[in-house]
């Protein structure tokens, strides 16, 4: 395992806003790992609508 500090790094921007709104991290399996701009837009929508962001688990044999 790569070295890192154990405490949570301070959340920033939209991720902080999401956590402040819902009290938890968005549930993601990395579907938007290569397109954080789209992911952040979806988080922004979730904050506006009050509906949590949640991804389904990738199915059998699916890789992102």
């Amino acid at each position, binding site marked *: 395992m790569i070295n890192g500090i154990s405490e949570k790094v301070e959340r920033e921007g939209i991720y902080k806003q999401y956590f402040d709104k819902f009290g938890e991290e968005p549930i993601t399996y990395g579907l938007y790992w290569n397109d954080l701009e789209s992911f952040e837009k979806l988080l922004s929508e979730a904050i506006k609508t009050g509906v949590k962001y949640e991804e389904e688990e990738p199915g059998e044999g*699916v890789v*992102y």
Partner: protein
Amino acid sequence: MIKEKQDIITNSYSNFSTTVNLLQSDVFNKIFGWLKANTGANSNLRTLSKLNKELKSLITAKMFQTPVKGLLKDFDQVETISKKILESENDLDLKDFNLSAEKQLTIEEISNGLLNDAMIEANLRAPLKKMLYRYVTTGMPIDKAEAELRSYILTDKESLGFAERYVKVLTMESLSRFDGTINQRVATDYKLDGFRFVGSNIKTTEPQCLGLTKASGEFAQYEVNGKYRVEDIPKIIALMKRVAKSTHKNLDPSNFFILRSHWGCRHQILPTRLLEKDKVEFEGRLSNDIEDVKEVEVPKAPIIKFGSDKRFDDYINGENVPDLIKNVVDKLPKPREIKSKGKDKGSYYSSVTNTLVSRIESGKDTFFHEYGHHVDLHMAKNNSINETKQGLNIRSSKMKDDFSKDLKNINEKFGSDALGKLKEFLKGKEDYRLYYRGFSDIIDAMSNGVFFDDYGMTGHGKRYYKKDLNRKYYETYANAFEAIATNNKSVIKDFQDNFPNCYNFVLNDLKSILND
């Protein structure tokens, strides 16, 4: 200490400043007085000859004798500091390391420069004579000649006077060479296998010195962790000579530490012992010698058509895509379906349905990433689901060792908060969210998703990796495939520097696919 030594070398000529400034004033007054007295004279070559004789009695070797004695103290100081630097750098004891012969030879060299009449004639008197003959033969106006003489002879805010320039370069170069001689002898006597090229840069720093201090351009290929290998010195010298004409013509491995780069070079070459991790990285670099993937010897690539959106054909047939990738894509069965939208909004590859989805917004990098998954998972494919799972485990276990080696090296290289430092490292890259997604994603895989979840960096996150232990290998494969296919030199260099084993694993896997 390096800076302290540099300051002693740079300021060494101050021993001469009083003497030299007096000399410069005397010379200027004498010449300008003569010019004023002779302005407008038709034939003054005879009087000029008299002036030359006076200059000869004014600029003598004798006047430098006393300041040269003062300079000897600087030699002792440089020797003391050099030894301290080399002792701490290499854990050596240099108390009894005798340098009196080297010191004597260098002092003779400087004495020859400053106390030898022929050298003084060539460097100090001859340029003045040339100017004077020009004034006499062209009849230059007195005010113009005065301005030119003043600027050449005297030291002012803008520049040093003629004698001070000569003395400065000579003293600095002598001390630098003495310092270099210590480094050369320590490197040889203690069989040190590495070196660092150090010193500050200024606006006029020569390109070969910039390349070596910053490990930039073609010099980067010879550097690891701020160090170069002694065994690479012949190649490095050849590159220096190719990059800049100012490089010493006589520079060779036997005098590399002494002459450094060019006449008047203020950089230092410090011999050092390579650590095990340095050697591992150099070895990784060596086995990864194929800097440009396009140079891998493969057949000329055919034009590929997927029969889907034209943009996918444009991506794969792109001029910058290495033939190695094109040939692998051509040889293996293509995904059953390649499309821009799937039932989910993101991009993905499904080995069950053999479908590749790559969103338009995510661009060609993502397409190559997903295609990397297709190649990797296809190679594990077998007749039954169980046999395929077995194949996936075998492929993952093959990559496991390389993955662990790279992870270990990264921890050693970046220290206790490697993730924090890697975050800073990536944020220092231009458009890191665009060009370094794959790099960041490998770090995320190596941290089992912590890099995304806790550090806010591009990656798949903890949930993704918790579900399937092989996913970190699948993602690493896809990211290396993407790096090779997109063929961005800076990104490839960072892959080779940080994940040399994983990068090589994928490169060799692709070559073996072609050769099978």
